[in-house]
């Protein structure tokens, strides 16, 4: 077993720091995407949320992957306004419950993504093709499951998930939105990437980078 077969608390902490770094780096781009088809606050909200997570991380001393994800969940829920807070908050909350035990293997990665997707669907009631976060999370969860079925490592599962989420986010460009504020725009949303799908791809990519994949 190599050291990337499973992932533990150190990976989880790196992932969260990576999330904060990527939303900081892409803050302006997310704002621009959201300004085109939403209310323009997505980049700022996520930046504020993950900055708050970083602030709590040091004091909280989480012991397990689940603890880390739960801290992210509660912090995002209370600091990210609009729909993104409850959506990502629930995703991380359910992901925390799925990440049972000290280490996460490839099947665990798939379980975390599947649980996170379930949380987003429970709150947002969106389906694939609605031009939402679901368009990134659904292929990501499926790709991780495929790696787990093929006997791959946790890091390989995150890499496959990140690539699938990236491709999934790009599929939202030509879509008409069926959920959220962008749905009011009808065909004017065509040609714009969904900001939630884009930020989802960034966060899942951060998990893969933290896993060294």
């Amino acid at each position: 077993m190599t050291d990337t077969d499973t992932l533990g608390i150190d990976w989880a902490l790196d992932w969260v720091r990576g999330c904060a770094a990527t939303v900081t780096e892409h803050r302006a781009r997310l704002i621009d995407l959201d300004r085109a088809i939403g209310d323009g606050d997505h980049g700022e909200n996520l930046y504020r949320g993950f900055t708050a997570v970083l602030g709590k991380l040091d004091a909280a001393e989480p012991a397990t992957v689940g603890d880390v994800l739960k801290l992210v969940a509660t912090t995002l829920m209370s600091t990210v306004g609009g729909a993104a807070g409850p959506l990502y908050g629930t995703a991380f909350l359910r992901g925390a419950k799925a990440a049972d035990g000290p280490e996460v293997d490839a099947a665990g990665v798939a379980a975390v993504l599947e649980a996170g997707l379930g949380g987003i669907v429970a709150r947002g009631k969106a389906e694939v093709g609605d031009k939402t976060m679901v368009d990134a999370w659904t292929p990501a969860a499926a790709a991780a499951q495929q790696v787990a079925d093929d006997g791959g490592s946790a890091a390989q599962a995150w890499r496959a998930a990140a690539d699938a989420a990236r491709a999934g986010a790009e599929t939202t460009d030509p879509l008409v939105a069926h959920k959220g504020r962008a749905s009011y725009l009808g065909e004017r949303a065509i040609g714009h990437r969904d900001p939630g799908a884009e930020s989802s791809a960034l966060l899942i990519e951060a998990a893969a980078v933290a896993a060294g994949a």
Partner: protein
Amino acid sequence: MRSTSLVLVSHSAQLAAGLVEVAAQMAPDVDLRAAGGTDDDRIGTSFERVENAVAGALENGADAVVVLTDLGSATLTAESVLEMLDDDRVRLVDAPFVEAAVAAAVAAQGGGDLDGVAAAARTAIVGFQDAAGSAAPPADPAETPTSDGAVARSLTLTNSLGLHARPAAMVARKAADFDAQVSINGVDAASVLALMALGLTGGAQVELRASGPQAVEAAEAIAADIEGGFGES
């Protein structure tokens, strides 16, 4: 004493506080809590404010908490709080905000439990017209009461505003207080929304019917309120 509290979640702190004010007039003994606006008082909803309101109600001795929301992300936030708390005593009812708050507050004032208060809130979903039409079978004024203990009274509303929100809540509370089924002009008198939907103003005729073990007491108590103009002129 059984108690059910309400948490009213709105994008606006003022809207939530205002609705608490309205509902409190009809339910003075119910623990009503506003959770409106973001942490820094912008328009939006705050997970922490909702969580604190629910926790505060439970710490204050509530047996149950019904959470009501105005729209969109307020509902998402409240759902997230409930998922996090994972507590059977707390329930979200997705129903028209103002109407549901009024109906739920009156039910809670009458000692309603979680199911009872949640059901009252849900009556707001059907809307005023439907509530009036479907709450009880229409009464036939010419019908002679035949069942044991059933009573019927014909009355006139003496106060000028008639059966508006506050008097409707008074009647609904009394109807719920007694072991009796009470109807006014064919609608369930325990439903504040159904009573308000009748749109009865001063001078209107009221057909009050009651049946059940405490039919006489219920009818007398409600008739006394009506004849006294609900303390209004």
